[in-house]
Each structure stands twice: as structure tokens, then as C-alpha cells.
């Protein structure tokens, strides 16, 4: 697994737990969780290529649109519901977060921190940011809802969700000082 947020997520998943990975891409996180933690579950992916790659990775994948909710899943049927690097592409984030906290005991969410100083600097210079974490041009991007650490924590408060743990990373390293300025990736563990 190349993405550093996935390492952080994997460390929080308890061995043998049931996981739901929303926007699972090629299924590599689920495969990793199965091989390393004997954690099993399902991925949800809408993209044909992602679904096919997940099937080749021998993980359970369900081709569904997250925007239409998680109606197929029962309350509290998973230990962890994971949304990695997908939050920023979701239109109705508040609804999805509520759904995640309904079907999982815990939600794990990672996203690119729009508060990182380079993003702020680019905006100050009058441009939409383009960076390692946000490589797309503004006119051609799947990202519709970018946020900062502070914004996300506000949303959790609004949802009445409790932040259990937080990891802030930049180029694979933990960021402890001024995380909302120096961190480029944020990973949260949240419960209802």
C-alpha cells in the first residue's frame, strides 16, 4: 500500500473486525486488512475499473452509488466504516456521515487537508491549489467538497459525533505541530 493514510487506517482496525470500505478503489486496503488483520467485509465502488480491480484482488465488492446512501446495510453491522480519500468527492457529505455512523460502530475518514500552507499560499496568490494530494485542475476534478481539519471537526460537532483519534500526515510523517497548517492528509476515527 503506497498511500500513507491507508497505513494509519490499517493500524486502527482491530484484528478480526468487520469492515466496510466506501469508495474502495482497487480493493487494496481491504486486501491488506484481510491479509494483515484478518479483518473482512465489503468494498463499495461505483467505477467499473475499480470494481474489476477489486474482484481481481479477491475482495468482496459492491457496485453502488454512495450518494444514494447505505440502505443495503443494517444498523451497527460493521466495526469500522472507512471512507478514505473519498470524502472530498461526495456531494451529500452530511447524509453519508450520518449513514456511516448508523451502520458502523466507528467511522474512519481520511481526506486531503485544504488548510495546508501550500494550498493556502496558492489561494493567496489568486489560484486554486494544485498539489501532490490535489493534483487536479479546478475545471477537471472529481473533488467537490474540500475542507480543512477545522472544518471537518466542526462537522463532527454538528453531527454530535465524537472524535476518538486523529492522525495528521505530511509525506508519510506524523505532523504534531500546527497540524492544520503543516499536515496535508488527515485521518480521523469517529463514533456516534
Amino acid at each position, binding site marked *: 500500500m503506497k498511500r500513507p493514510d491507508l497505513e494509519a487506517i490499517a493500524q486502527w482496525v482491530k484484528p478480526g473486525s468487520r469492515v466496510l470500505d466506501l469508495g474502495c478503489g482497487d480493493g487494496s486496503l481491504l486486501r491488506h486488512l484481510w491479509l494483515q488483520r484478518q479483518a473482512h467485509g465489503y468494498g463499495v465502488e461505483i467505477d467499473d475499473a475499480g470494481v*474489476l480491480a477489486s474482484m481481481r484482488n479477491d475482495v468482496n*465488492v459492491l457496485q*453502488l452509488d454512495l450518494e444514494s446512501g447505505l440502505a443495503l446495510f443494517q444498523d451497527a453491522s460493521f466495526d469500522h466504516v472507512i471512507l478514505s480519500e473519498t470524502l472530498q468527492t461526495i456531494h451529500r457529505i452530511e447524509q453519508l456521515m450520518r449513514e456511516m455512523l448508523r451502520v458502523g460502530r466507528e467511522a474512519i475518514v481520511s481526506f486531503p487537508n485544504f488548510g495546508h500552507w501550500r494550498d493556502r499560499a496558492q489561494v493567496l496568490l489568486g489560484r486554486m491549489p494544485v498539489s501532490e494530494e490535489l493534483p487536479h485542475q479546478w475545471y477537471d476534478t472529481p473533488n467537490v467538497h474540500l475542507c480543512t481539519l477545522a472544518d471537518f471537526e466542526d462537522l463532527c460537532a454538528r453531527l454530535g459525533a465524537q472524535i476518538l483519534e486523529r492522525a495528521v500526515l505530511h509525506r508519510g510523517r506524523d505532523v504534531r505541530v500546527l497540524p492544520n497548517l503543516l499536515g496535508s492528509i488527515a485521518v480521523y476515527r469517529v463514533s456516534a
Partner: protein
Amino acid sequence: MSGSVGIVKAQRAAFERPFRFRSGAEIPRFELMYETYGTLNAARSNAVLVCHALNASHHVAGTYAGDPENVGWWDNLVGPGKPLDTDRFFVIGNNYIGGCFGSTGPTSVNPATGKPYGADFPVVTVEDWVAAQAYLADHLGIERFAAVIGGSLGAMQALQWALAYPERVGHSLVIASTPRLSAQNIAFNEVARQAIVTDPDFHGGHYYEHGVVPRRGLRIARMIGHITYLSDDAMMEKFGRVMRRAALGFDFDVDFEIESYLRYQGDKFSTYFDANTYLRITKALDYYDPAGDFGGDLSAAFARARAAFLVVSFKSDWRFAPSRSRAMVKALLDNRRIVSYLELDAPGGHDAFLLEDPRYHGALAAYFGNIEL
């Protein structure tokens, strides 16, 4: 590279024992037609049963000697190097009981009368088909299938296998199907049945004795079916408003290409398919409802299943729309079963399950590739 299974030969298994149908009716003996492709391994763990839908047969792949045009109905899926790889799996096609391609059905001779069963052949159900297939599995020495696969009505059999014989199925592949017909589905079937039974040549189902077949009824039944197999878009794409003649005829002969196509399909079908079988198949579809015994609770009905599932639907399929497949996926999730689900944005309508789409066949290849033998 992928290729054909080549020349194949249909086989017949005879069972000298009574078969009792879900209705309670019984026949004293029965036969089932089947074909096999590939080799059963020493552990007998690589068998895959392919179940057919309405008009197909045991002839799933390859061709017959001297008849190169007669290619099996799922030849694009089954063969060496194909998604259902006969280098790895022992694949079995079968014609269900009550069919008209050699398995015991309405055209077979009733030992009690020495005449064809005709109208006296029992009404069959999906449960009956699967029970008969279980005898065929015993006959072939297969205790457990690596997988059972089917599309549409064939998928109902794949599902029923997982429910009726949970310990005998490793994987169930349920494609373009539904756990029960809707009122609209039943309505279409009833129109097809009425077309057949009101044909003056039907003779209450005993038309064999009169040396006729209710061809007009079968034709119309098939035309109705074809409309439901294609999506509006696919039909428009394929036929549009293309004319068969230079100008409007202002009569009731064929003006448009689609009319010609439906007439051709109806005519062709009426020369080879048995009307009594058609009636019974539509009833089997109408009656299938595994949740029926559980107050409509599909999750309770699926609790028996032990197989891993692959469920596939096609967005343009309005006959058995994706929402029906999602209901099955939900029931499997409720029971914490192993399941993957594909909802493909393919244009082909219900018939998409027979077409070669790289995403669809790629997924099936990946799924079969991961089945441990």
C-alpha cells in the same frame, strides 16, 4: 488464448425412478439431456453447472459434428481460456425437466398411455428443475459444485441451488435475475399464455394428436418476450424507424424493420419450441418466490444459503431491474454472506447477460479465477 470447446456431443441420463413435482404430481421415470466441457478433476471439485433461461438448452458451448452453425448459447463465456475456463473447470449444461430439447417434458411419451404427455405433463417449478438437476449431479458423481451459474430464469436456478442444497454449492452466480416476479412480469407472461391457449390449434394442450402446433400463439408469445428482453434504447439503436419498404404501405403488412424482426423471431421460435413447455416455463417464473414461505422476508429465506454469491444486474434491464438484484444483495448482507455485486451500465437490456461486454466478462473471469478448487 481463448478458443472453442470444439465438437461436442449431447448425452442423456435416464432415471428409472418416479419424480415428484412441487405440485404433488408424479411421473414414473424421467430423462435429462446434458453436455459437458472440460475434465472433472480427481477430487471432483471443479464442476460448474450452467442453467439455461427460457428458450435455450443443454447446448451451452461448442458445435455439433456436421452442424457448425449450431453454436452453444453461452459459447462466448465457456471454453478454453474464456471467463468460465474449461481448462480449469468441468462445465455441465443441462436441459431442465419439462423442457423440449430431449429432457422429459410434455412432448415425451407418457408410459401410462403410450401417447405424448401433452397437457397432462405436470406444471413445473424452479424447485423441480433444481431437484432434477440434483439427480443429474448424483448421476455424474458430483457431490458439490464449485459454482452454479445462470442468467434470468437460469439465475433463479443458481439461487435455488444455494437455498435447497446449501452444502452442495460453493458459489452461486445470479445474473440479470429477481427473487420474485412483479405484477408486470406476470402480466406479460399471462398475455403470452393467452396467445397460446386461445390458438385454435392448441386443442387444450393435446395438439400433438391432431398433428398441429399452436404456431400463431407461440409466435405472439415470442414477440412479446422479445420486446421485454431489449431496452427501449437498444431497440431504437438496432432498428430505429428504419423502413422495410420504400414508402408507407397504408396497410397492415410490415412497414418497419422492428416489425420484420419480431415476425422473424416469432416464426423461427414457433418451428422449434414446444407450446406446452412455454406455458410451463412462464408458470415456473410466476411461481418462484423463495421468500413466500417466510412471509415475504427475503433475508429469512436466504438464511439457509452458505454459498458465496456474485450478483450481476444491468441498468438497462427493465424486465428484471437492478433494484431486484439489490434486494437479493441486501438479503445476503443481512445474513453476513460473502457477496459481490456488479451493476453494469450496459445498453443491452435483459439480454445483456448473453452479450460479450469486457467489463462483464472481465469480472466473471476474475471471479471464476479466484474460486479455489
